């Protein structure tokens, strides 16, 4: 069975996470993705790791391998006019171009929607940038951490009211990049549906800051509705919803509804302290969390994570393990669903990657080929596909354009 997007042709000019993740989502559904990297250096995610055995190698970076499987890889210097000319030829044959070239760099190399639309009027071009293509901050420099801050997400996390000196805390990894990527993938598919309907392309301008600001749970509206500031220093209004330490790891104790608390109390054997007035409803448990915590810590510490997790879940209480990476790789549930996948790469060897975000019944998600080595498909794409002669290609290579 073919993937859902197996007739879609995409060109990616991507660095690090946002654009590469957007096109990964599509490549894993069968879309053809030609990824353009800078000659010699390649995508910066090649230097991020993790690396097998901790030995850095530009063909063995876990982040790169994960984000770029299923893609063809070519190298092209877009700051040279011959390089831009080849991009135009690739764009002419594509349905979609997705990039995360920053606005200043776009101006410098002359990458624009107008330019690519001239060679392909039905092209969808998606620009993923930190702050969008317009507005005063469009040329601001940004990284994952500064965007997590600018999007209103970082402010929500920290050590809580007891530790006001501890700073707002970034969530692990490259989450701003991932969110920019997946929001761009959805917007791009919207534009592709309109392309299918109308036969015309368009320019999609995705702001990572706005993609993050769009997911502030209920916190943003506290200002316009109530004049209240959202802060990591607020107390949780209800309890227990906290990680506590078991014999062999941490468990997230989570009783949001009253019936869940009653079921957990039953699992604990109806201890006397649980009948105390100060723990009689979720708001009181929130107000008296310091006292409650001592009792819960003592109980939880006597159990293993899995034993307690299964016991309370049987009573329909939504605890969860604070999973370590080892827990995930060994999970019987994830094994039964076949979540993790193994990919054999010519240089990095056989490695285990996270798999599909979801399962498509009719059009399977599938890894068909490993991430490209730098410039692996130059001959195939520029030679066979675009018809450049061997001599011409050799000349472009000598000039450092390919």
């Amino acid at each position, binding site marked *: 069975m073919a993937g859902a997007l197996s007739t879609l042709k995409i060109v990616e000019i991507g660095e690090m996470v946002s654009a590469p993740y957007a096109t990964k989502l599509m490549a894993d*559904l069968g879309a053809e993705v030609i990824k353009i990297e800078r000659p010699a250096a390649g995508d910066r995610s090649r*230097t991020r790791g993790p690396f097998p055995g901790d030995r850095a190698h530009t063909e063995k970076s876990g982040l790169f391998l994960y984000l770029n499987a299923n893609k063809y890889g070519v190298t092209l210097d877009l700051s040279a006019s011959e390089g831009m000319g080849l991009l135009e030829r690739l764009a002419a044959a594509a349905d979609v171009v997705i990039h995360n070239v920053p606005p200043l760099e776009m101006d410098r190399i002359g990458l624009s929607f107008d330019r690519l639309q001239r060679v392909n009027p039905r092209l969808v071009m998606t620009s993923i940038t930190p702050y969008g293509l317009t*507005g005063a901050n469009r040329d601001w420099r940004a*990284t994952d951490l500064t965007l997590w801050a600018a999007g209103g997400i970082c402010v929500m996390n920290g050590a809580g009211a007891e530790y006001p000196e501890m700073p707002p805390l970034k969530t692990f990894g490259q989450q701003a990049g991932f969110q920019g990527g997946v929001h761009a993938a959805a917007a791009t598919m919207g534009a592709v549906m309109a392309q299918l309907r109308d036969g015309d392309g368009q320019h999609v301008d995705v702001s990572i800051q*706005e993609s993050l600001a769009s997911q502030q749970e209920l916190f943003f509206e506290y200002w316009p*509705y109530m004049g209240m500031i959202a802060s990591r220093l607020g107390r949780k209004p209800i309890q227990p919803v906290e990680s506590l330490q078991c014999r062999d790891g*941490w468990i997230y104790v989570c009783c949001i509804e009253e019936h869940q608390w009653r079921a957990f109390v039953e699992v604990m054997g109806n201890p006397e302290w649980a009948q105390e007035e100060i723990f009689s409803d979720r708001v009181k448990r929130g107000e008296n969390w310091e006292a409650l915590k001592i009792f819960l810590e003592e109980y939880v510490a006597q159990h293993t994570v899995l034993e307690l997790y299964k016991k309370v879940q049987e009573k329909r209480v939504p605890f969860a393990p604070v999973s370590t990476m080892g827990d995930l*790789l060994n999970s019987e549930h994830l094994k039964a669903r076949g979540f993790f996948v193994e990919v054999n790469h010519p240089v990095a060897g056989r490695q285990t990657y996270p798999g599909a975000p979801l399962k498509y019944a009719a059009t399977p998600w599938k890894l068909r080929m490993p991430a490209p080595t730098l410039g692996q498909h130059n001959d195939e794409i520029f030679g066979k596909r675009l018809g450049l002669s061997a001599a011409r290609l050799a000349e472009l290579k000598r000039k450092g354009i390919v």
Partner: protein
Amino acid sequence: MAAAPLQGVRIADFTWVWAGPYCTLQLAHLGADVIRIETRTRPCITRVLPPWPEGKPGGLNRSGYFNQYNQGKRSLTLNFKHAAAHEIARKLVAQSDVVVNNFAHGVMDRMGFGYEALKKLKSDIIMISLSGYGDTGPYRDYVAYGPAQVPLSGLSALTGYKGWPPMHSGFSYADPNAGIHGAFAILAALYHRAKTGEGQYLDMSQWECAMVLLPEGIMEYTMTGREPERIGNQDPLMAPHGVFRCLDRPEKIAGHAIDQWVAIVCEDDTDWARLARAMERPELGADARFATLAARKANEDELEAIITVWTSGRRAAEVVEKLQNAGIAAAVVADNKYLSEEDAHLRARDYFVYREHPEVGKKQHCGVPWKMNRTKTEVRAAAPAIGMHTDEILTGLLGYSADDVQNLRAQGALE
């Protein structure tokens, strides 16, 4: 402007809380007719949660939480204790392209709205379930709540200050993440249907959908056998890379001083030299303790202390302006007031929307995080009051007469 990309596409939206509504919000942004199927007998919890205008609860239409994630949708109320409600829902599905739910595994089946049943109503229907654990596997009947999905995914074990226990992300991150991935998946399935005429069923485990965001953590383990260490706001390949204290907000809010912070990153040695100049300590650029990444990583505590001395006497916005002018990545750790009133850039981009809502009037809400130059993409209307569109959907779309509607209402089927 040409019609919105999904104009004419109808979504039967059985979702609630956050993950599902965030999914269908994206489809509404793209022009789909999203019809939320609700009931007054068990309303979505976000309809009763804060924030409320002036802090006053009351009724089902005042919550800023609900009103954020349900913009541009219609609301149909049905009480499934009545057979007539099932009949209405079946008629709606027959006129829909996509059915979305985020119940636990099995709930839609038990209601009689499993994929096989829906396919009989509409042969090319696309259905997606955004459940906590997915439809297969030994834990498929486990209960999942938003906040617990973050630790379950592995994200908590990876997030935290150095030497501290695992921490949370501060919000139910797995929810909107599932929602936006679900929106993308629906669009891919619509594309496939447009090409082949074939609908399908999509099975999402929110747990898995969160793990796809963690390749660096998971692959550090699979490639080295080591559990990653928690490193706070730092980064192995960049320094400084942190969040630094600034002056408190000049104004007090409800009598409280509000702390402010700034995120600053130097990607390389050049950035560091620029930062040293911007702090008016140019000699630090070439200082042996900080001149190279290796040196800055080795002396990172000292480095952060020096920066904090500089930032802590300044306003966050002033620090950012100065650093961005010097070409350094920096941003205010924006809180909701900052985004709402002080981020002039977001306003200039018309990111926020103000639509008339029948009970709360015009309130500021977050809008569409992308722009399109040819087709419409917009927040068409405020979130619906509960059941606000029941009559127009029954009479306009499903062919009931006004009398039918009156009878159905009298029976209680439209509660």
